[in-house]
């Protein structure tokens, strides 16, 4: 099944790193996924987050407030 991944963050360095890590993890795993980057704060608040960046997989918050590294994302996506 195609994974749905969302990265929430207003565009700071940490959020960009998370986003790039996600892309890299997907490439390394060779899977298909929808990756969305949500930078608009009003949109972000619908997900009730407190700290950014946030990484969501299939609409479940997996990581918040810190950068997830590539290996961690790979584990999250294969779980």
């Amino acid at each position: 099944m195609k994974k749905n991944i969302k990265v929430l963050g207003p565009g700071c360095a940490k959020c960009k790193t998370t986003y790039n890590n996600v892309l890299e993890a997907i490439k390394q795993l060779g899977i298909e996924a929808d990756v969305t980057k949500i930078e608009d704060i009003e949109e972000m608040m619908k997900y009730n987050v407190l700290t950014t960046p946030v990484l969501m997989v299939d609409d479940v918050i997996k990581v918040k407030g810190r950068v997830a590294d590539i290996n961690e994302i790979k584990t999250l996506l294969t779980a």
Partner: protein
Amino acid sequence: MFDWLQHIVDWLIYSVFGLTHGSKIGDAVNFFVFDTIKIFILLGFITILMGIINSYFPIDKVRNFLTKRKWYGLDYFLASFFGTITPFCSCSSVPLFIGFVKGGIPLGVTLAFLISSPLVDAVSVAMFLGMFGWKVTIVYVVSGIVLSMISGYILGKLKLEHLLTDWVKKILENKQIANENYEEEKQTFMQRLPDIGKEALGIVKGVSIYILIGIAIGGLMHGFIPTGFFEQYITKENPFAVPIATLVGVPMYSNAAGVLPIMQVLVQKGIPIGTAIAFMMAVVGLSIPEGLLLKKVMSTKMLLIFYGVVTGCIIISGYLFNLIL
């Protein structure tokens, strides 16, 4: 506490590398090596310690804690206190702000948290300990918390809710009690430790470049500027030094890691410590980039009042520091 390290560094610099003891270059290199190692030891230690506390009191828990009951003013203290142990990057300030007020936490309490979080954190505590000793560190931490409480309290009393931006007001109108489905992590201490270590390592890595640059500049100044050099320009008796230092610091954006090594040298060379701390608080606590982010939730008028109140409190604490330290 770090005498043993100074001996090793002395031996390394003067005996192994053969630099002359007392020469400008020798002093500068010695200062750089000793300070770098000392700061990184302290930094590793304190980020892990704060990481452990934070793992048991994550931000979501703090919010639920503050919303669950009425605190009758104690919430200003709690918010300021939890702000110090919660690491957060300035780009989280808006989601945090909304999340707090949406959950029913008063505006002043939310602002107290926002002020204290960047002001006192693991990095600044570690660096203060390394550079000024435990007495100055305790005074700094306590006054950071008190300053946040007082600023938050004043801002709360000013009733600024009508100055929030429209979309925030809309959120507040149909605020629902934040869903309390926060899941307590059931991990044991040993299971948490790897994550805490990883997190601490990330923080240390993130600030290490600033520390190195800061200490390098500090080392150069240490070796080449004569002791007491600044005393002829800035003295405790000059009543304008504190406000000027604060106002210069407000627009600047840096973290404690970059500012403190330079500050240490400035103090050694004769700048009063209260003036230096006021400058540092202004640099790490308030900045133009943070202000631009907060414009999303505050009108310009509210932002100016917010910055004005905090700046005022920093100036007052600068005078107090000069009196007691």
